[in-house]
């Protein structure tokens, strides 16, 4: 499974009812536009840590506000 697929799976697991449609460009849209709030973000990055083994610092979390940015960060971290 690609990193993007894993991240989308985690987000949809944590945020009940969210839809992320790659064909609609949702992976580049800020979380606030997708209805993902700050508490959801905390839940998402906890699951990223638990399922993907990557712990992201608080100040970095604030920068990673789209699926694409998270994927890019994880791909550089795990290279």
């Amino acid at each position, binding site marked *: 499974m690609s990193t993007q697929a894993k991240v989308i799976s985690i987000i949809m697991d944590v945020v009940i009812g969210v839809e992320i449609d790659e064909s609609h460009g949702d992976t580049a849209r800020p979380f606030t536009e997708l209805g993902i*709030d700050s*508490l959801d973000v*905390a839940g998402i990055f*906890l699951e990223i840590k638990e399922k993907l083994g990557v712990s992201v610092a*608080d100040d970095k*979390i604030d920068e990673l506000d789209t699926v694409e940015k998270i994927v890019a960060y994880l791909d550089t971290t795990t290279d």
Partner: protein
Amino acid sequence: MIGISEIASYVPRARLSNFDRADAFGMDEDFVRNKLGIHSVSRKGPNEDTASLCVEAFRTLNLKRTVSPGDVDLVIVCTQNPEGHGIPHTSAHVHGALEMADNCAAFDIGLGCSGYIYGIGVAKSFMEAQNLKMGLLFTADPYSKILDDTDRTTEMLFGDAATVTILEPVSPGSGAWQPFGFRFSTRGSEGAALTNETGYLRMNGRAVFNFSATAVPEQIRQAMKAESLTVDDVDRFLFHQGSKYILDTLTRRLALPPNKVPCNLSNQGNTVSSSIPLLFENQLHDASICLVALSGFGVGLSWATCFARRL
């Protein structure tokens, strides 16, 4: 055997609406309703303080059951925001206000959201060791005394309240509750997540969430395994009412039926060590409920779990 036979509470009448304040904190109504789960927070009056909240809870208790102050052997107040500046201790203030006897033990426990379960454990053990007959465990931690009204991470969360729990000798068939299966934990190395170093509460919400979402389920699983309990055996999981989001997270992570996880946040907020007894008060005399799990977690970092069965 010392057990729990009654709980009473006092939640001050004054409220601050989170809907009215949401805009100022960059939140929308959906977030307030569905993530915080706190529509309004309770606030003590200007002439109320920690001990007077306890006295009001005691007055409410006497509407349910007459307790003569002279018969009380033990008073414990769980608080981290004591009466005045903390000297004398808050339980001494309560003892004096209620004109209790000289041979009554009174001391405070300095814990927050884990405090009710620690308090039950301490009270039960102390009473059984000293052969005491009537103990009152108060919780009263009015965080309004230390909230920064410009801090969006705390100002909309916490509410003021007090509770009192009667602990006394109990017997099978009495309908009283026997606490058991206690687990106590501390992680002082991460205590910076919740502090009061300047007179104001500061909270790293993300750190508190991460701790709550990981350490608490693990403790509950261990506690249940040690007592050979399954989710089916437990009628209610009474969690500290931190926020709706943390309750939903714990429910999901522990795979609990949502109807077993009550929530009473909406019209008072997170009342710190009072949050669990406020929930338990509503379950205490419901004959359909026979086994509950109680789990409190927060400042310290400190967390504790126990169970209680109806006798």
